[in-house]
């Protein structure tokens, strides 16, 4: 049994400027118990790196997200992202989640596929017409999910430059002070509140209008909850997908034999997306700690009530106890229950949508730019929670 007084190690482990999974994780995963880690801000935490432990902590209701609001939660930036679904526990969480869940079911999202495919092809057509080189991020990976989430939610795409700044700030780990962080969040909230007012005056066939009805007619959520839900969906709805599209291409360029196989047989795309979701450790480090609400044994470590636990999804996804040849990319892998979209009540709301976006993005790239390759150095995002290229020059 590990004792609480071992000296915590500095965290996060991953470097921002690659998609490499730090070797530290493999060492820790093979040791008994859980290590203590210290983040730049907040209290020390336990770190979970094994697949089975990750599922336990993310899936068991004795671990709470709402408790984090009452604690100095371990985090990478001074400011903190409170509010929204990820700060709630059941049954409160369910009250909000059920309002939006229907818009994101597999069945509903499948109906958007033709539109998403057309958007992906249009973006690549514009790119090829302008000629190489192009920036895969600005010309493709970002406008695709932004276009999709804007239409779905009812946010004008023309405002992209404005909300890109706020959204970057929300997910930043940089030198923003808590005040600057707060100011940026308030601007984004004010912007969203303005859009909600416009939708109240002019209802439309979109998710924002549906949520306004849930608030005004059925009183299912408060005005601030409504604002934060829309903000959360807008931010979460594009940043991750926009990072994963170029990340996936990077990994495929590093694995030419797998890439060639995918080009030959595009029916492998859906499985390839799952494997890439497993293989790419997206975060610089684990975030969103869970707080134990009672004493719980995790892999031989006694986690006391009130202790925070961080779950390193990228490490759990490479656990050899769960995945054969866990360190190898295999686009034909079966039985791939990766944790790339999390697990449990906070399992990614947008997972079905992100899957379709990523599948269609890959399919369009394979079909229209089969010879795509790097045309210069990747400029990696630094000081962001999520890793990925800021720009990625490509030719074809």
């Amino acid at each position, binding site marked *: 049994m590990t004792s609480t007084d071992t000296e915590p190690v500095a965290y996060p482990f991953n470097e921002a400027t690659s998609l490499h999974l730090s070797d530290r994780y493999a060492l820790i995963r093979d040791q008994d118990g859980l290590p203590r880690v210290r983040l730049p801000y907040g209290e020390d935490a336990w770190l979970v790196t094994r697949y089975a432990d990750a599922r336990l902590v993310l899936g*068991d209701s004795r671990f709470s997200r709402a408790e984090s609001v009452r604690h100095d939660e371990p985090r990478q930036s001074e400011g903190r992202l409170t509010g929204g679904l990820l700060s709630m526990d059941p049954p409160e969480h369910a009250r909000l989640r059920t309002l939006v869940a229907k818009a994101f079911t*597999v069945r509903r999202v499948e109906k958007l596929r033709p539109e998403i495919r057309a958007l992906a092809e249009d973006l690549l057509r514009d790119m090829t017409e302008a000629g190489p080189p192009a920036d895969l991020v600005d010309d493709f990976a970002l406008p695709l999910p932004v276009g999709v989430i804007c239409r779905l939610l009812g946010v004008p795409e023309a405002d992209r430059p404005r909300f890109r700044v706020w959204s970057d700030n929300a997910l930043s780990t940089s030198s923003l002070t808590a005040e600057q962080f707060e100011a940026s969040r308030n601007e984004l909230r004010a912007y969203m509140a303005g859009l909600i007012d416009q939708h109240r005056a002019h209802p439309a066939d979109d998710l924002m209008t549906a949520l306004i009805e849930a608030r005004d007619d059925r009183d299912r959520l408060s005005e601030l909850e409504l604002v934060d839900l829309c903000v959360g969906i807008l931010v979460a709805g594009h940043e991750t997908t926009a990072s994963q599209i170029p990340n996936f291409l990077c990994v495929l360029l590093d694995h030419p034999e797998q890439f060639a196989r995918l080009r030959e047989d595009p029916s492998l795309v859906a499985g390839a997306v799952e494997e890439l979701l497993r293989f790419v450790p997206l975060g610089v480090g684990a975030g969103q700690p869970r707080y134990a609400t009672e004493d719980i044994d995790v892999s031989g470590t006694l986690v006391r009530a009130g202790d925070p636990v961080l779950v390193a999804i990228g490490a759990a996804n490479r656990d050899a106890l769960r995945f054969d040849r866990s360190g190898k990319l295999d686009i034909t892998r079966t039985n791939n229950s990766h944790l790339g979209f999390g697990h449990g009540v906070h*399992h990614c709301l947008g997972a079905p949508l992100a899957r379709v976006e990523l599948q269609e993005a890959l399919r369009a790239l394979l079909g229209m730019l089969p010879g795509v390759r790097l045309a210069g150095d990747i400029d990696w995002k630094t000081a962001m929670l999520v890793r990925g290229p800021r720009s990625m020059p490509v030719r074809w």
Partner: protein
Amino acid sequence: MTWRVEIDRDVCIGSGMCAGMAPSVFELENERSRAAAEQIDPQEAALDAADSCPALAITLLDEDGEVVGPRP
């Protein structure tokens, strides 16, 4: 009055949402959901889970076989 829980394990994607929302009703077995009991007492948490399931894999039926969840 009791409800019956049906889970389509072929479409379940093992998200763990249901087991997190209503642990007395759903449990995960081999990374897929299954009903913890044949019959359950009517309860909000089970309806929440049926409404939230991303795969629409959960159906709740009353004693007459009428669908009570997911709610429309």
